[in-house]
């Protein structure tokens, strides 16, 4: 191999592996936040590589809003838990569930806040995780462009964009205040760190890596005939009976796929014939829409991602 010309993907891979190992070595209780999507798939592959031949020395956590696509649940349970044999924790915000919080009557903002943001905080507190890996990339959104790889959170999981630690070379400051002894017993929460090993990856890098590494994916990323209704011109998949139909509305079978996966009533599909990875990549490169546009939450107002992050959303 030409020493001066390591391909950018191998360089990114090496950087991510370095980050995984650094966290595993420096924190008491790390966890990998697993969302079943393509970024999580890459994250998981990198974690497998970082500790090979051992398995990753931390569990996976899925914060379940109960509104994911059925294909996602199947993939999670069959591939990740069974085939890879990894420890998978699932957390559902039981209070939210009991209150019947859902994206349809409560709207995307409230649903996401309660089931996802609060659910995540509950799970982190419950297990006492001090470091959580996430699959966020800096190229996703403008406010994420400034996020550090090691993102410091206070005891309330809050992110302060003005109080970030400088991050130099590949030397990461892993020091945090841990609630100890009597304070921990009294329920005082220590600080924690969110870690983003894919920070420097772009959407194209993620897809290309999936292709090169032959990483298994949820089928929803590939085009297929699926039942949809149109909401505001966006195809929404009717994944189960919970999606209320307007009077006279009937689901139509369309050749669709998803660029990003979230809660199904909040995930807009795109009409597509891309059934292979190269076709998906071509479509992605040719499309004029930015990736997160399919997700409804970002349209709540300028800088809404930034507001959510300050509250503890990933």
């Amino acid at each position, binding site marked *: 191999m030409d020493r001066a010309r390591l391909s*950018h993907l191998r360089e990114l891979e090496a950087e991510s592996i370095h980050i995984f*190992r650094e966290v*595993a*070595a420096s924190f008491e209780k790390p966890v990998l936040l697993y969302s079943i999507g393509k970024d999580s798939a890459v994250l998981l592959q990198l974690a497998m590589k970082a500790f*090979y031949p051992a398995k990753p020395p931390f569990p996976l956590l899925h914060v379940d809003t109960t509104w994911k696509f059925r294909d996602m649940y199947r993939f999670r349970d069959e591939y990740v838990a069974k085939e890879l044999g990894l420890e998978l924790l699932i957390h559902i915000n039981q209070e939210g569930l009991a209150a019947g919080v859902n994206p349809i009557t409560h709207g995307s903002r409230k649903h996401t806040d309660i089931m996802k943001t609060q659910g995540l905080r509950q799970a982190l507190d419950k297990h006492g995780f001090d470091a959580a890996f996430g699959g966020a990339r800096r190229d996703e959104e403008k406010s994420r462009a*400034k996020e550090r790889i090691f993102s410091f959170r206070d005891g309330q999981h809050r992110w302060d964009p003005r109080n970030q630690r400088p991050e130099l070379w590949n030397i990461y*400051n892993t020091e945090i205040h841990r609630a100890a002894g009597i304070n921990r017993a009294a329920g005082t929460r220590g600080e924690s760190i969110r870690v983003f090993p894919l920070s420097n990856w772009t959407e194209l890098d993620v897809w290309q890596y999936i292709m090169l590494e032959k990483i298994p994916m949820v089928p929803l990323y590939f085009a297929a005939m699926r039942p949809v209704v149109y909401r505001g011109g966006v195809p929404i998949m009717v994944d189960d009976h919970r999606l209320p139909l307007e009077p006279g509305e009937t689901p139509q079978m369309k050749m669709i796929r998803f660029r990003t996966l979230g809660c199904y009533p909040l995930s807009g599909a795109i009409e597509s014939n891309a059934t292979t990875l190269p076709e998906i990549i071509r479509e992605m490169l040719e499309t004029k829409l930015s990736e997160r546009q399919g997700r409804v939450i970002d349209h709540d107002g300028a800088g809404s991602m*930034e507001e959510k992050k300050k509250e503890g959303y990933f």
Partner: protein
Amino acid sequence: MRADQAERELISRDIEEYLARHERKDLLRFLTCGSVDDGKSTLIGRLLHDTHMVHEDTLAAATRDSKALGTQAGELDLAFLVDGLKSEREQGITIDVAFRYFTTAARKFIIADTPGHEQFTRNMATGASNCDLAILLVDARHGISVQTRRHAFITSLLGIGEIVLAVNKLDLITDSSGAFSQDRFNEIVRAFEEFSTRLPARNIRAIPMSALKGDNVVERSAQTPWYSGPTLLEHLETVPLGGHRNHVDFRFPVQWVNRPNLDFRGFAGTVASGCVKPGDRVMVLPSRRTTTVKQVVTFDGDLNEAHPPLSVTLTLADEVDCSRGDTLVHPGNEPHVSQDVSAMVVWMDDAAPLVPGKEYILKHGPHKTPASVVRIAHRVDVNTLDRSPAPALALNDIGEVAIRTSRPLVYDAYTRNRGTGAFILVDRLTNMTAGAGMLLDPSEADGGNWTSAPRATHLAPSAQVITPDERAKRLGQKPFTLLFTGLSGSGKSEVARAVERRLFDLGRFGAVIDGSALRSGMSRDLGFTKHERSENLRRGMELARAMNEVGLIVLASFTAPDASVRARARELVGGDRFALVHVSTPLDACRRRDPSGLYAAAARGSVKDVPGLDLDYETPTDADLALPMQEIGAGEAGVRAAVERVMAFLETRGALVR
């Protein structure tokens, strides 16, 4: 439109081929630095826009923002493609490091976008730490500013070898024909080159441009017919990569010991530099145990070799003790191992300054150790590059410090090896990353060997059996060191020799240590740089101290141009038995005499670093005895008169016992 049109065609025609090519692209990380109004965000927006890396809805949002808040009269303000956080958008300033990504047919790029205001030096150092290249933006109307100098210095400090001087806003300075002004461009480039001669050598590429109008960013400008160099993008696509990587010295800091079962024990880490193969002899530092590499393990199979920046797992032939924070190297090519190190530090903590004596956590690769700053050697004024003493380093200060660590560091000088030459200091109370450090080779450090701790710490010298009093009685003198300093040709050696003769004739014992004579023996490894001159004097002073120990009066003749180094000499020998004698002769007279032919050689250009010419001679303000030779007199009579003054001085200091 350029190559990206071809890229687009390839994507729709043959995506597999496109991906095969894309897979082989390498990665350039670069930094953009400029002041608030230099047009930095506009330049980045222009790069992203003209390489078609902006999605249409992002463009639409930026256009909407431009109408509401923009500065371009409702036109698209490219800066809005870039400026991220809400508060920044409202203030119209970028306040943090932001990373941007784009790809062309040739390469993938990561931009570290860092701000230019004075209070954010730390962000720039942060952005620069992983970059190969830096773009310094200069507003052509204002020319090289204090900020430009600061940016040039910081990028140099962080070891960036490729600089682009982007002379921006040239559309606002045009010549009579309406073209961008070549004179203004040349003037700015000259001013920059003049300043950068004081920095380590780097490749500098100056490009005339207008980021706002797009001239010479991606598209070649019609307004610069006098410029034949590359556009910014062409340069970024072709500049050589990895200049900061060291492929010679194998260093493998162990990050994680991988022990899934009793049959496997692997040492995981990132190759910091050099190359490792199965079968290589390796040494574990700091323990110095040696063994052999068995396999280079990865998830994708064993490798025949590993080099930076690969993250791999090494298995070793023997069960040697090795854990996180240890470093594997090739025996015979070993880094420094020391608890006493010198480093340049950029201070980043706004809550508390760096003060000597305070303990920090030092993180150097995977190695972590308590450490405290023993001494601040100097602070560097980033505007003038002048060094001055400082009691503390405040936020955004840069200075050289001496650090003592609880456990030894295994390191190389940052200039030789970024991978093992960098560290951070973490405040123990707040956990903030308080400082970023770049380790110096012990010989480059301000204190040099004057302040470094001895390597051997376990030795105890044998006890004296003759007391100083006994010696003084026998010799009729008390030990003393006179350091004669002055320009080459000032007459210091002649005076020293004449004093030696006089002492001998009086039945006393003087000994001359001549700085130039040392260079053929104990200092034959030294040249004439500031550091080497300092080291030569140090060796001379160690010798003087040893001679004083046996009772001799030492007459040391050294140019010793640095006041701070002379002060160290005084400290080393001991203030009560040391005196500085300034032999002053005007430079012109020294040149005429030129006993060693030094000035003639300098005139021919065959030597440099000559004190008084191209190296500063700091006239002593603390001399214990001044010998103004022109007043005292010329020739032998002058020397005799000077000897009288020296003898009288020794008398008053009690060095001669009746």
